[in-house]
């Protein structure tokens, strides 16, 4: 079935309430820390208090003698057990043609620690309190080395890894440099901008947690883990790290309390628990404290960039030239290397028909937590850079922010960008016009005057983003260095009485798949949504899966279900044809009924389902019994959600307090299956993006490498009273490369919003002379910028 027929089915576009809500609302959710196994012990990790140090000695004897202690394991134990380091899932090839520098990433430090929070030892004890107390008794003697946290100083600082001279991981580039340089030579105007994309802590509300479990009788491991992609976790852990047979390891990601990227990766703790569960023959639980999460969850962003935009005399963009230094942290996290390259530089054409784009990226190691994908993963960094420089160009040229964008929008599709992507559809003018109307652009001067009357500075900021979801296809990604496939798997199991259980490789950790995916299946089969249940997050039940990240679930996981449903429908039609004594080609299926073309003969879906499992009147010579189909779907292209966001801020120049007073978001997500869930995704994304722009910031001390923002007391999390009501609108150009027409909505808000906020801040501060500003717009930083402009 194609996208246009699909969008007309019942339930598609209906704001159905969520099937999963009852358990969450009544305290019956089942998160990893809620699971209690017999024979359980508790693990606590001894972490490095230093950003960079050689380990001179580890004395475990006092800890081992402490009450309740079962084991204390450290780096030498890992070496003895022949457990490899954590793998990086994406090999970037340096512009020199050599592979990137890829130092080992041991699960427990092997002679050296490289960031505050690096894993030194694991203490296992009968109770959590005993484990915590014993962890204090592990004596580690360190020889402290100089640390570097700022990506711009990585090159000249003490090397973290012997394998990475100058702390350099790779230099990578995309685009036609000579053509870009030529375009700059002929430009009427060049806008230049330096900017920093601030480092963020993902902070899903459920901290990471895991339970390692081993069954000696069956020689099987089970790892319960708060994770976004259990099959990938299992594959990486068994094949690359532990050398275990994959069929002997089951990974269960039960209810997961948010991910935002931080729970994609294979972490050291997961491997340690799995390994030790057999070694100690005990179940072992680890639950991450929030302070520990700040130190050890993969962080997001942390780019330092220089950008230049060449413009002709009419305001048309000629070329964009970018250099970015990307901070990868101390080790290569699972997909870290793809974020500032494949997922970033390819998005720098944006919504604009800029003929030439050239992007060069240097990636560096520093003494900080590993940096990896965080809600948006590369696309927010690209959007922030591009949308900031476009607004700056408008300010310099005396154009309005919407006019300069509209003048340069791509209008013909499909569109091949100069940085590898091919956009299938879009209508960027429609998004801009809708946003201007919904955001009441006409009323802005009056609102600005009203703010001024209160002594406040009001500014307006635009951001017209495009992003890429459902990273694909596997063979192209493989050619670019991906070490994993990027398909998805789905199984549709029709039961004899016509109800359905669906097994999907996508994973829901808040996105509502149990409802949206059920809508898709119910719509296709013409059965009530209540008759469809979704199973996910268990390698023991779901055939295979790549999980949920990059807003891929509906467009890739949903498409896999569509393929499985095509197979179900094709087989069911044959059964129906037999029952109604008609040819296969004469059978129609609609609204849950099979009918014979041109007759009034029809039978319901339930009858066909029952016949498949009670095959008495059945073409057994031609058709297997049963109605259970699995499909793997590998997309032919990314999907390309796009939108225009408009932010209005009010700034008190006396205090620097910056308030987002009005925020308008108009997105094109293609076909929308459940608008209630989609709007919820946008709200959440906006708050994370506006949070980055206004308040969130991971700060390491430049001398010691200590994390200064290591708790909710120090790292500002967005709260309910930081925001106005958002105005949300949609345009729809269905995606042409998947059978649903969907584009993905999970990250758009976080991608599009930061530059809209900062452009608004700069518009507001223009009258007091502030020309440049880096996130976050905290009162102190805004006040300082105002004072500096006055001086």
């Amino acid at each position, binding site marked *: 079935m194609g996208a246009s027929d699909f969008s007309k089915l019942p339930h598609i576009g209906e704001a159905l*309430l*969520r099937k*999963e*809500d*009852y*358990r*969450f*609302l*009544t*305290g*019956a*959710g089942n*998160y990893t*820390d*809620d699971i*209690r196994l017999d024979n359980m012990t508790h693990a606590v990790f001894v972490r490095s208090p230093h950003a960079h140090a050689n380990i001179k000695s580890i004395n475990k004897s006092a800890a081992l003698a402490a009450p309740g202690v079962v084991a204390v394991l450290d780096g030498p134990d890992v070496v003895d057990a022949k457990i490899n380091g954590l793998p990086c899932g994406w090999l970037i090839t340096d512009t020199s043609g050599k592979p990137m520098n890829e130092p080992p990433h041991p699960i427990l430090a092997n002679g050296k620690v490289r960031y505050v929070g690096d894993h030194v030892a694991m203490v296992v004890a009968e109770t959590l309190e005993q484990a915590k107390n014993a962890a204090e008794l592990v004596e580690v003697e360190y020889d402290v080395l100089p640390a570097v946290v700022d990506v711009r100083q990585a090159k000249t600082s003490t090397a973290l890894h012997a394998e990475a001279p100058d702390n350099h991981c790779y230099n990578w580039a995309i685009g036609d440099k000579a053509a870009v340089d030529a375009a700059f030579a002929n430009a009427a105007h060049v806008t230049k901008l330096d900017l920093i994309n601030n480092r963020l802590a993902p*902070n*899903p*509300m*459920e*901290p990471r947690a895991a339970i390692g479990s081993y069954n000696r009788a069956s020689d099987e491991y089970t790892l319960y883990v708060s994770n976004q992609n259990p099959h990938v976790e299992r594959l990486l852990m068994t094949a690359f790290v532990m050398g275990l047979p994959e069929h002997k390891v089951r990974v269960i990601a039960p*209810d*997961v*309390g*948010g991910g*935002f990227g931080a729970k994609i990766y294979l972490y050291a703790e997961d491997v340690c628990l799995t390994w030790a569960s057999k070694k100690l023959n005990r179940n072992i639980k680890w*639950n991450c*404290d*929030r*302070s520990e999460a700040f130190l050890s969850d993969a962080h997001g962003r942390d780019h330092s960039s220089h950008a230049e935009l060449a413009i002709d005399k009419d305001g048309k963009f000629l070329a964009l030239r970018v250099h970015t230094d990307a901070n990868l942290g101390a080790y290569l996290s699972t997909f870290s290397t793809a974020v500032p390259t494949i997922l970033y530089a390819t998005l720098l054409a944006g919504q604009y028909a800029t003929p030439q784009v050239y992007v060069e990226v240097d990636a560096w190691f520093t003494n900080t937590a590993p940096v990896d994908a965080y809600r948006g993963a590369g696309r927010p960094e690209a959007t922030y850079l591009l949308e900031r420089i476009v607004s700056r160009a408008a300010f310099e040229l005396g154009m309005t922010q919407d006019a300069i964008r509209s003048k340069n929008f791509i209008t013909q599709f499909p569109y091949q960008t100069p940085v590898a992507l091919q956009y299938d559809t879009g209508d960027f003018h429609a998004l801009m016009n809708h946003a201007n109307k919904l955001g009441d652009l006409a009323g802005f001067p009056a609102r600005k005057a009203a703010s001024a009357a209160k002594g406040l500075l009001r500014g307006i900021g635009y951001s017209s983003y495009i992003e890429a979801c459902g990273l694909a296809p596997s063979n192209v990604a493989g050619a670019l260095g991906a070490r994993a496939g990027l398909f998805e798997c789905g199984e549709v199991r029709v039961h004899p009485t016509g109800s359905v259980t669906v097994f999907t490789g996508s994973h829901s*950790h*808040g*996105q*509502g798949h149990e409802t949206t995916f059920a809508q898709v299946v119910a719509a296709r089969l013409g059965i009530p949504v209540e008759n469809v249940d979704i199973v996910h997050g268990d390698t023991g039940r779901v055939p295979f899966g790549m999980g949920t990240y990059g807003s891929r679930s509906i467009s890739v996981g949903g498409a896999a279900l569509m393929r499985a449903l095509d197979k179900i429908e094709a087989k069911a039609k044959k059964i129906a044809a037999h029952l109604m004594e008609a040819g296969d080609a004469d059978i129609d299926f609609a609204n849950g009924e099979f009918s014979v073309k041109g007759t009034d003969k029809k039978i319901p879906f339930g009858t066909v389902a029952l016949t498949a499992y009670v095959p008495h009147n059945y073409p057994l010579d031609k058709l297997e019994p049963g109605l259970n189909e699995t499909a793997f779907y590998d997309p032919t292209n990314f999907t390309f959600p796009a939108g225009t966001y408009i932010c209005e801020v009010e700034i008190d120049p006396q205090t620097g307090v910056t308030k987002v007073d009005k925020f308008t978001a108009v997105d094109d997500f293609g076909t929308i299956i459940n608008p*209630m*869930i989609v*709007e*919820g995704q*946008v*709200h*959440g*994304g*906006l*708050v*994370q993006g506006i949070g980055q722009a206004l308040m969130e910031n991971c700060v390491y001390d430049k001398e010691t490498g200590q994390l200064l923002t290591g*708790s*909710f*007391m120090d790292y500002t*999390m*967005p*709260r*309910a*009273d930081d*925001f106005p*009501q*958002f105005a949300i609108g949609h345009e729809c150009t269905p995606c042409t490369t998947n059978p649903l027409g969907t584009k993905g909505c999970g990250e758009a*808000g976080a991608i599009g919003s930061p530059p809209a906020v900062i452009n608004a801040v700069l518009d507001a501060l223009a009258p007091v002379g502030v020309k440049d500003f880096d996130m976050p717009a905290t009162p102190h930083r805004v006040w300082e910028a105002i004072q500096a402009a006055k001086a």
Partner: protein
Amino acid sequence: MQVQMKVNGKSVSVDAAPNTLLVQALREHLKLTGTHVGCDTAQCGACTVHVNGRAVKSCNMLTAQAQGAEVTTIEGMAQADGTMHPMQAAFKECHGLQCGFCTPGMVMSAVDIAKRHPNASESEIRELLEGNLCRCTGYQNIVKAVQQGSAAMKA
């Protein structure tokens, strides 16, 4: 030490160490795992329960301090037949939850807000939710749910 409490209407006696937090007694001793722990600095509010009718962060109170108290957790909010409390129903109807982790604490705070500030405006509700963090919803639908649940509780 033995601590006597009434939890969700039932009398219980918990053998708690002097440093056992109320949230630990609820989760570990009484297996009421609906109350969650989302931080270690009493900031996130995922552990919010009612103690003697008021919303309290159960990570910030010792079990011993709950001696003789009436404690209500998220498990005690629905009716015996499983029908949700009007505030729980409002969260579902308004899509005021996504991953569900902050939700028990949010609902417990929301009921407290509705009781103590039945006529709170939208901006007042936003301020009253200061003690509860949510990373998924962007709060907009939570605020809507508190308004709708508040109205339903009055009815």
